[in-house]
């Protein structure tokens, strides 16, 4: 069987096959892995790779697969899922030319106007969420081409608040 996942804009291809007793072989790029795997619960896998034990916890949303392994979380994109631009810097769901917030909130102050030139790291908008004011900074230098929200507006994650024309 073959699976594809996205990370930071790159596509990774995994070939994986196994037998009824839970012994698997997999190939990622030019590396080959042999291991024993067991599905402990819908979200929990036990993998023995050359006798080394590895616990993995996995869950999925519409767009992503979340994997917890070795104390770290890796978020993989599902190819063909709706959201583009994994790993963008302008907020979790943003790409470099669209500034959005990672959480719902209220726009407290828009600090720039259409046409403004902005620097990388310059605060663009202040959003209140979870009782805190949060500055959303520009991920890049560029020109503001659109400001879609005003002070006091409620904003949802992924909605572009500001559009930029990056100059980098």
């Amino acid at each position, binding site marked *: 069987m073959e699976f594809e996942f996205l990370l930071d804009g790159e596509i990774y291809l995994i070939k994986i096959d196994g037998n*009824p007793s839970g012994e698997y072989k997999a190939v990622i790029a030019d590396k080959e892995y042999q291991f024993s795997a067991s599905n402990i619960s819908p979200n929990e896998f036990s993998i023995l790779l050359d006798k080394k034990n590895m616990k993995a916890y996995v869950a999925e*949303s519409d767009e992503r697969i*979340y994997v917890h392994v070795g*104390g*770290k*979380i890796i978020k993989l994109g599902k190819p063909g899922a709706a959201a583009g631009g994994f790993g963008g810097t302008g907020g979790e769901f943003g790409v470099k030319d669209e500034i959005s917030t990672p*959480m719902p909130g209220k726009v*407290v102050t828009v600090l720039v106007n259409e046409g403004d030139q902005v620097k990388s790291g310059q605060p663009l908008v202040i959003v209140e969420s979870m*009782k805190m004011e949060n500055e959303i900074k520009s991920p890049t230098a560029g020109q503001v081409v659109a400001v879609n929200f005003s002070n006091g507006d409620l904003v949802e994650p992924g909605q572009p608040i500001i559009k930029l024309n990056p100059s980098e």
Partner: protein
Amino acid sequence: MFKKILIANRGEIAIRVMKACREMGIDSVAVYSAIDRDALHVRTADEAVWIGEAPPNESYLNMDAIINAVKETGAEAIHPGYGFLAENYLFAERCEKEGIVFIGPDSKALKLVGDKVASREVTEKEGIPLIPGMKEKSTDVDHCMAEAEKIGFPVLLKASAGGGGKGMRVVNSSNELKDAAEAGMREAEAAFGDPSVYLEKCIEKPRHVEFQILADKHSNAIHLFERECSIQRRHQKIIEESPSTALNDDLRKRMGETALKVVEVSGYTNAGTVEFLLDENNNYYFLEVNARLQVEHPVTEMVCGIDLVHAQIRIAAGERLWLSQDDLSQRGHAIECRIYAEDPENNFLPSAGKILYMKEPTGPGVRHDCGVYSGCEVSVYYDPILSKLITWAPTREICCRRMAAALNDFPVLGIKTDIEFLRDVIIHPEFLKGNTFTDFIPINLPDWRPALGDDLLDKALLSASLFSNTASQKPVVSGGSEEIPSPWKTLGDWEIGKK
């Protein structure tokens, strides 16, 4: 003793208080907002009353609704937890008028210690060491500017009514002051209903050390030693520990005595915390009294072997303190990590959404005070704290290792949390050495990003493939008896290369 207590809060702290009630044979009443019907605190209480819509001022800050819930259920006392109405003296006053016991100090003491400027006056008179600063609160930016020039930059801007770092800002020069003051006032207004701020001299390279106190209604008070809370981001604590690596026995004794003096002069009763800044030369300055059960109270409980919520309830019921200062000692070491829904890669911005899957860490010396669960929605309306992970061990070294191991085995999937970041703080050589100052994070972990080796990426890809493979083979599930059949039952025997 009370027969029924209403807990005017939500999340982990409400649950922690309810468990204490159960152990004391007291019924607990939860209150909940419209979006909290499925929240864990509702399911932990003996009774639950709906008090309004999601925004806090329509529910958890709605005094009328809460007082009504008390009357409707026949509760005799209210435990306010922390945040919301916990330090609101008007609420305490209202309870006093209605004949309901407010589990905390009386409204008079609450008003005094809640007003940072008034409490400065009272404590200064008694010779308690204070940080140089404004004598009165203000909502006037120009006045603040003049005062800042007098104190000398850098200054610290703080909300007069609040705590928890909300509204707090370091201001390095006069041209930063206006923006900082305006934003601080807006936050203070939103969080506490009072925009007043004040300024004080910014102590450089400080530690934040606080003393837990218990005072009964019969003029007896004890302190339960210190908590070191220097590891902060956005001026908010994220890691606390006890004992502090900075205190020796003499300093501990003197600070404890000062803390008890503060309690005495302010007429404070019940559980409270006296906060100090400690500079590199072991000078300490009284900051304020946190007139509530603190988020970080578990580290004191684990080191001192007492239960602060039981103590709060017994004191509120009029009991005399059953412990003297000599009965108390610190044993071993405890550390708390606050688990927040936030993004440490992105200026610790709060993160909301659904927790797709989580698994609580367990083990000897591991305590997890938790307000969330697999499948729950983390709302944008409330404080982003999810839970608190506390470890205790005979030594600080083992305590750190135990915490690192627990954080390492603590999956929370679907929202961003600070778990990986906390682990990297705990295993940092400077943290292990005990070099914990309030600038620890900007100095030692600036621009933190999780490290991800190729090896780990491959392991993640293998896991994701196994998951996708299983998910695609999964049958209709009937309730709890989910059988995950081997995909090979349907697919037969494969070999590599065959597709």
